[in-house]
């Protein structure tokens, strides 16, 4: 296939992203604009922006690839990524917004009155962010390689550069517009080709997918290990969403707690609509592109299908459209994660020695953004690529084992102490963060391998247990102002009470 249209598509998406970012720059003036878009984003815009940022390459390309290989069981990924927002809505959304902090470390410090908790959660935000950025950068390289025959580094570097420019130049205000635009681009870029594909498929006599029963039936092999794996995905995604730094940081851009709830409802709708689409690509792939499984390129099934079913320029144009959407997926998620990391690290830079007072907070944000992109960029060249959807689940498991307990207990339980929070963050973090690497390094097989490579089912209880246990043991150190903090977290904004800490 000639790569011309693909190049045009990638170029258009890149230019549109930078142009919308530049538009945001013209109205970004204050520090608050840069960090939280001055807390004035409406639910409809913010809902599109959160969905745009959330639907990463793992959703856009990864789900279709997993369905192609493994079938019905993989539908749990999109379910988890949606239901995660429901749990975020009921446990976290409004109180988190009402806490009035910029980031998770801010929340931790405000709630627990401890700088140590702040430092530990800053380190974890960076870890989750890098785990998330790495597969995005690698996936961008693979996509451009598949569609444009470009060397792998081209896509990786292109995404890193555009993301850094956008964050450095415009901050949160411009990212918001870019993300909202990219949600609608992603839906269009999967929906329109899908209609043509279904048309071609039914003209072809509606051939059925050639697959064993295992593929068709959920838990078809009925082994305890596949039941465990399903639950590992469920726990990690259901509970991990509320702890993802780039999702959480967007909640501070809502005007108030009511808007935070409405935003989440809109996100639930938008994300669900999107997740109807990749499944079709996976199933059609089983009909027309089964060879991709053996060649290890299942993640590219959405990119391959249009040119296989539809001949000539029409097929190439549709491929270009899917490519544009995929590129938007890489850009939007990477921008969101980078923005969240830069916000957290930038605050640390500008508030601490030896730069205190000498570095403006906007300059700190810019330096932090460049640094936060550089590390995963280097890692992307060193590390072996793994399927994008499963590697993203590592980041979810880490967030579920650390930030989920911190937020849920911090918001709903007065008894949480700083010592308990630190114990849970470190303990949960080590379980969820180290276990997968140990498995990969030692090549553990069998039940132990399954348990270690998908740790969420046991690492989340470890995180919660440590936080509750150590907090109870250090009961004397419950912050004195916890009552006032609870008033602030839970009273609706319209009620006039003293919200100072």
């Amino acid at each position, binding site marked *: 296939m000639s790569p011309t249209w693909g190049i045009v598509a990638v170029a258009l998406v890149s230019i549109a992203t930078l142009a919308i970012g530049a538009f945001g720059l013209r109205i970004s003036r204050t520090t608050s604009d840069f960090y939280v878009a001055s807390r004035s984003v409406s639910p409809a815009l913010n809902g599109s922006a959160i969905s745009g940022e959330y639907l990463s390459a793992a959703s856009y390309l990864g789900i279709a690839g997993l369905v192609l290989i493994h079938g019905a069981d993989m539908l749990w990924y999109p379910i988890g990524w949606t239901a995660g927002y429901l749990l975020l809505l009921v446990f976290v959304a409004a109180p988190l917004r009402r806490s009035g902090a910029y980031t998770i470390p801010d929340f931790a410090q405000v709630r627990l009155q401890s700088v140590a908790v702040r430092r530990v959660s800053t380190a974890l935000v960076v870890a989750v962010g890098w785990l998330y950025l790495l597969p995005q950068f690698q996936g961008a390289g693979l996509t451009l390689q598949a569609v444009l025959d470009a060397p792998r580094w081209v896509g990786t570097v292109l995404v890193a550069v555009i993301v850094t420019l956008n964050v450095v130049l415009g901050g949160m205000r411009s990212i918001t517009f870019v993300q909202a635009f990219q949600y609608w681009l992603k839906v269009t870029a999967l929906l329109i080709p899908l209609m043509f594909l279904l048309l071609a498929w039914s003209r072809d006599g509606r051939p059925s997918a050639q697959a064993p029963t295992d593929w068709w039936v*959920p838990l078809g092999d009925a082994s305890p290990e596949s*039941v465990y794996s*399903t639950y590992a995905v469920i726990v990690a995604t259901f509970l991990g969403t509320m702890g993802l730094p780039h999702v959480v940081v967007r909640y501070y851009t809502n005007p108030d707690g009511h808007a935070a709830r409405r935003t989440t409802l809109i996100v639930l709708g938008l994300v669900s609509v999107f997740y109807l689409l990749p499944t079709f690509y996976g199933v059609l792939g089983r009909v027309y592109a089964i060879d991709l499984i053996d060649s290890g390129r299942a993640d590219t099934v959405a990119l391959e299908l249009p040119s296989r079913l539809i001949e000539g320029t029409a097929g190439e144009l549709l491929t270009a459209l899917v490519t544009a959407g995929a590129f938007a997926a890489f850009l939007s998620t990477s921008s969101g994660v980078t923005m969240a990391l830069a916000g957290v690290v930038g605050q640390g830079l500008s508030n601490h020695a030896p730069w205190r007072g000498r570095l403006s907070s906007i300059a700190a944000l810019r330096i932090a953004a460049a640094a936060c992109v550089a590390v995963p960029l280097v890692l992307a060249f060193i590390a072996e690529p793994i399927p994008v959807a499963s590697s993203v689940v590592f980041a979810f498991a880490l967030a579920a084992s650390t930030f989920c307990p911190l937020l849920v207990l911090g918001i709903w339980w007065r008894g949480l102490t700083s010592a308990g929070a630190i114990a849970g963050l470190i303990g949960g973090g080590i379980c969820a963060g180290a276990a997968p690497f140990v498995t990969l390094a030692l090549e553990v097989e069998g039940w132990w391998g399954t348990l270690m490579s998908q740790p969420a089912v046991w690492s989340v209880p470890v995180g919660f247990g440590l936080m509750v246990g150590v907090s109870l043991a250090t009961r004397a150190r419950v912050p004195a102002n916890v009552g006032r903090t609870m008033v602030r977290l839970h*009273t609706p904004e319209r009620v*006039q009470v003293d919200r100072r800490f």
Partner: protein
Amino acid sequence: MTDESPNGSGRVRITSPLSSAPPHVRSTVGQEIDEATGVGEVYMQSLIRSQLRAAMTVAITLLLTVVSLPLFFSWVPGLNDIRVLGIPVPWLVLGGGVHAGVILLGWLYVRHVERVERLFALLVEPGDTRP
């Protein structure tokens, strides 16, 4: 009252409240909460409890329906032979049905907690008639 005096003499009678009497104390619920009195604590506790109850209701509903689906699928074989519009039932449920249920649950939750918060606001500031 000053210029309507009948003879137009411009005389003004000045009255004063009982300035030596202790002021009449009527603490609002907002003040009770601000001063963390026993009453204020009770109000806050009841608000937080009712919000937590709503959240737990959603979480438990999710646990009993969606989270128990894998077990259901592994215990009840043959579901794949039941087809609606040519699509096996498990695929319909996992591919779209669960998402619709999750949205409905979220909508019901938001409706409920917004009402709780409205009632709480009315309790704290009875004169407030904003919607």
